[in-house]
C-alpha cells in the first residue's frame, strides 16, 4: 500500500511541476528492501542443498510486509520527517505555491479536507474494497450535482481521490461504470486533465450508454 502511495506522491509532484524531487521512504526504510528481497526470493531456488522458502514462509513474509509497510515519510531538506499521505500532499501543494488546490475560502478548504480524509479512511482501509460498492454509491450521490469534489473548482481532493479510486474503476464492469454514472463522468474528466494521469493506466469509460434499460 505504501508503495502505491509513494508512486502517488511522485505523480503529484510532477503534476504540481515541482522540479526538485523529494526523498521518500516508508516508515523505516528497510521495509522497501524487504520487498525487493521477497520478489527475488520467490523466483530463485537457493542452491541445490538448501530448500527454497516454503509457501507458508513466503506468505508469512508478505503478511509481515503488509503490516509493516504502511505510512509514507518525506524527509525535508532540514532533516524533518513529514509523515502521512495527506499531510505530505498538502505540504507539496504549499511548496509548489498552488494553495488554490486546498480551497480558496474557509468553507472550501474544509470541504477539501473532508474528502482528503475520506480518501485515506474509506479507500485506504484494509477490506475497503469489499465495501467498495457502497462507497461508490455514496460518491455517486454526492457527485450528482458537482463537477469536482470541492464543487466548482479543481482541488487536491480530486487528484488524490482519482489515484485512490483508480483500482476500483479498473475492477468495475462496463455495466457498473454506467451504473455509477456520476463517478465515471468525474473520473473520466479528471484523468483527461493534463499531467494528472501519471503512473496509472487509462481507464476506458464509454460516453454512450449501452444498458439503457437498467435505469
Amino acid at each position: 500500500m505504501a508503495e502505491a502511495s509513494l508512486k502517488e506522491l511522485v505523480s503529484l509532484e510532477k503534476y504540481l511541476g515541482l522540479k526538485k524531487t523529494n526523498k521518500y521512504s516508508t516508515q523505516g526504510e528497510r521495509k522497501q528492501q524487504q520487498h525487493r528481497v521477497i520478489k527475488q526470493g520467490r523466483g530463485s531456488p537457493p542452491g541445490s542443498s538448501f530448500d527454497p522458502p516454503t509457501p507458508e514462509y513466503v506468505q508469512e513474509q508478505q503478511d509481515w510486509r503488509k503490516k509493516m509497510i504502511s505510512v509514507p515519510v518525506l524527509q525535508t531538506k532540514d532533516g524533518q520527517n513529514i509523515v502521512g499521505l495527506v499531510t505530505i500532499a498538502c505540504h507539496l501543494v504549499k511548496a509548489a505555491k498552488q494553495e488554490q488546490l486546498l480551497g480558496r475560502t474557509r468553507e472550501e478548504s474544509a470541504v477539501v479536507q473532508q474528502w482528503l480524509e475520506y480518501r485515506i479512511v474509506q479507500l485506504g482501509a484494509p477490506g475497503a474494497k469489499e465495501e467498495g460498492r457502497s462507497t461508490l454509491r455514496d460518491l455517486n450521490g454526492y457527485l450528482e450535482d458537482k463537477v469536482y469534489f470541492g464543487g466548482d473548482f479543481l482541488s487536491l481532493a480530486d487528484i488524490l481521490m482519482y489515484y485512490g479510486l483508480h483500482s476500483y474503476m479498473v475492477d468495475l464492469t462496463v455495466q457498473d461504470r454506467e451504473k455509477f454514472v456520476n463517478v465515471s463522468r468525474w473520473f473520466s474528466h479528471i484523468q483527461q486533465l493534463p499531467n494528472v494521469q501519471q503512473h496509472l493506466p487509462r481507464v476506458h469509460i464509454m460516453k454512450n450508454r449501452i444498458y439503457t434499460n437498467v435505469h
Partner: protein
Amino acid sequence: MRLYVSEGNPQCLKVLAAYELSGAQCEVEVVSHEECIVPFLGHSKLPALLLDNGNFLFSSNVICRYYLTSGGDEASTAVDQWLEWETLDLQPVALHALRLAVLQDKKSEALESLQPSLSYIERSLQKTGKTFLTSDEPSAADVVLWGTLYPLLAEPILLTAVDFKALTAWFQRVGSFPACKKASDGTFKGHGLQSLKSYLQRQPTNSTQATRATTNDPTVDDGDERLLTDEEIQAAVQAWSKGLAACPKPRQIVHPILPQQGERNVLITSALPYVNNVPHLGNIIGCVLSADVFARFCRLRNWNTLFVCGTDEYGTATETKAMEEGLTPQEICDKYNAIHSQIYRWFGTSFDYFGRTTTEKQTEIAQDIFWRLLKRGFLLEDTVEQLHCQRCAKFLADRFVEGICPFCSYPEARGDQCDKCGKLINAVELKNPQCKVCKETPAVRTSKHLFLDLPKLEGRLEEWLETTLEKGNWTPNARFITRSWIRDGLKPRCITRDLKWGTPVPLEEFANKVFYVWFDAPIGYLSITANYTDQWEKWWKNPDKVQLYNFMAKDNVPFHSVVFPCSLLGAEDNYTLVNHLIATEYLNYEDGKFSKSRGVGVFGDMAKDTGIPADIWRFYLLFIRPEGQDSAFCWSDLLLKNNSELLNNLGNFVNRAGMFVSKFFEGRVPTMELNQEDQRLLALTTWELRQYLQLLEKVRIRDALRCILNISRHGNQYIQLNEPWKRLKGSDTDRSRAATVTGVAINMACLLSVMLQPYMPTVSATIQEQLQAPPLCNVLTEEFVCVLPAGHKIGTISPLFQKLEVEQVEALRQRFGGQKPDKAAEKQEATTTTTILQDVQELAKAVAQQGDKVRQLKALGTEKAVVNSEVARLLELKKALQEAQGKPPVQKEKKK
C-alpha cells in the same frame, strides 16, 4: 450553519469543545444515532455540520479544524500530521479500547491497548518541549486528541495508572479550558463511561483493531520505527570491528550470591506455586517461566542477580489433599514439592534456590514479623462465629461443612455456597449442618482471631506506593488493581485460622491457631532466601541497594502490592519492598479454561510426555505470554509458530549460515569486507538488539522475543538477496562477496544464540556448540560485535528444530481435550460439542481467509507455483471444515 450531534457519541465531544472554544454561533441539534443527516451517505454519520453553502462536513476532525481556523490562516503541517495520525492510528485503537472498557468492563486491558499510542504522544511532547502538541498555543490537534482520549483517561484512577508525565500535564491543561469542561459535562451528564454504551453497541465490530478478547499476536509499536542515520551506521561498524577482547567478560557466579556495593543488585521472586496440585501451563508461564527469562537476561547483562522460588505448603487445601490421599500433610508436601521441582527443572528454570515454606526459618521470620506488628499496635483482636466439630475436635473450614440451604432448602448445600440456588452462604447459617468428615452435627462456637489493622497502615502504604509506582516498572494491570483496592478502602484483615497445618501463632491464648496463608506465604520469599544463605538480610533488609522484582499472575497482585507491604511497613525493620511488580493476565486453553478435574489442558508433568522438547514449550508459552491481555494456548497455533517462526525463520537462518561456512569455506569463518549494504545490516541488527534490551529491561518479554525473530528475518533476506551459493561460482569479486555475506551471517547467528538464551537455553547452547562460539561471548551489551573472526573454526552443523506434523498435534489435542470416561457423560458431551462448534467456526474463518489470499495472489499475478501451493492449502482447509461439520470424509478415499 447547523451542527448535528447525538447523545453519548464520543466523536461529538471534540466537536462540541471546538465549537465552544471558537465562540462561533450556530444551531446545535441533537438527533438519534441512526439519523441519516448527510443526504448522499447511505448510513448515518454523526457529528455532521451543514455549512452555509449547503455542503456537509461529516468528519469530526474536519469540523474541529473548521471551527478553529479562522479566515485565511492555513493549518500548519504539524497540525495536518497530528490529525492524520489521529484519524488512522488513534481512532481505531481508542474505539477498541472504549469497547473493552465499557462493554466488557476490562479497563486495564483497554488501557494496555492504548499504551503504544499514549507513549507516542508522550515522546512527541517530551521531544518538542512545547505546552501543546504543535506550539505553545492550542490548536485543532490538541482539541481532537483530547476529545478522543477524554472518555478513556478522564477517570483520575485511569490517568494515574498510565504514568506518562508530559501527557498527563498536557491532558489536564487542555481539559481545564472552560470550553472543554462544558463539552465533557454535556456529553457525559455525570454518567461517566456508561453514557457511551448505546453508541458503542451500535458500532460495527469489524474495526481494524483486533476485537477478540484474547489475542496471540504481539502488538507492533510502529512509533518506534525510524530511519537509520549515517552516524548510527558508522557507530555500528565501529562496534563490529572492536572484537571480543574489548568486550566485558561474563560474570563469575559464586554462591551464595550477595548484594555488592556499587553494583546493580537484582532480586527476583516468582509467586510461590501452591503445593497441593500439579501446575498447569498457565501457572508456569504466569510466574516461574517469566521470572526465569528475566533472571537469565539480568545475568547476561552482568547484573548481580538472585532468583528464588519455592512451594507454598501450608493451609487448608493441603490438609484436604492429605485426607484425600491418606497421607499426612508433611508427606503430601514432600511428594508435591518433588513433583514441582522436577517439572521446573525439566522446563529449564534457573532458580538460584528452590525452597519451601515448611521450614524452621519460616516460623522464625513469620513470628518475628508478627511480634513486631503486635508490639507496634498494628494487630487487633476480635471474635468470629464458627462451626466446631466435637468429635474431630476442631473448627471446620467452610468446605468441611454441609447442610440444608437456608434459601432454597437444598439438602446438600456446602458451607460457602449452595450448588442449587448459587447463593453465597455463611456456614453458621446452614440448617442441620454436618461435619463432612464424621457426619456429626457441629456446634457454633466463637473463636478469637487476630486482624492486621490495614486502615492504620494506609497512610504509610500510600506514601510508599507513590514513590514506588513513579520509579518502578509495574504492569498496567498491577497499577490498576492496586489503585482500585486502595480506592475501595482498606479493612482490617484476619491473619489467623483455626487449623493445625501452618505456622503457629506464638501466643498462649492462640495455641491451636496458625497464621492465615496470605499473611504467611509471602514471608516464604524471605525464609527461602534465609535457607539459601545466612546472610539473607543483606537482600531483604537493604532497600537502597536492592531492586526487587515480583512475578505473578494478576489474581495475586493485591497481596504483593497492598497486604504484604503493609505487614513489612508495620514491622519497621527496613525491609526491601517490591520495586517492580510484573503481573500477567490469564492463559486459556483452546478457548476454555484449564481444568484439572475435567482433565482439560496440559499440566506441567505431561508436557514432557508429548515428545515436544522443553525449549519449544518455553518458546511458544513466551510467544503467547498473556502480556496486557488474556491469551490462549492453542495446539494448531503451536504447530504454526514452531513451523513458521522456529523452523522456517530462526532455524533456517542459523542452519544456512552454518552450512555455508562448513561446506564452502572448510568450516572456517571467511574474510569479510563490509560494503554499504552490510553496514546497514549491522546498524539494523544493532537497532533490533537495543530494542530487545530496552523491552526486556521493562520486562516486555513477549515483545522482546519479536526482536530476535526480526533479526533472523533480516538475516534470511540478506542471504536470499546476496545468494552466496551462486556467487561462489563467479568472479573474484563475487567470491569475496559470498565470503563477506557468510561471515556476517554466521556472526549474526552467534549474536542470536546469546539473545535467545533467556528464552531457549538449550537451543542457545546447541547453537554455540555448533559454532564453537567462545563462552566469553555470553554477555549482552548494546553493541553487535564480530565475535567469530575470520579463521575461526566452527563445529558440526545440524538442524535445530523439527517440523511438527498436523496429525501429531491433532493427536495431542485430542489427548488433552478433556475426555474422561468415568465422569458424567452429559457434561462431557456438552463441552465436546462446543469445541467442535468452535472448530467449525475457526475453520470456516480460515477457509474464507485462505480464499481471499488465493484471490489476492492471483490478482497480483504471482507465480504459478506459489499460487498452486496456496490453493492446495485452501482445499485442505475446506476438507477439514467438511469433516468438522460432520460430513463423512468420503472424498479422502475417492482421491486415492
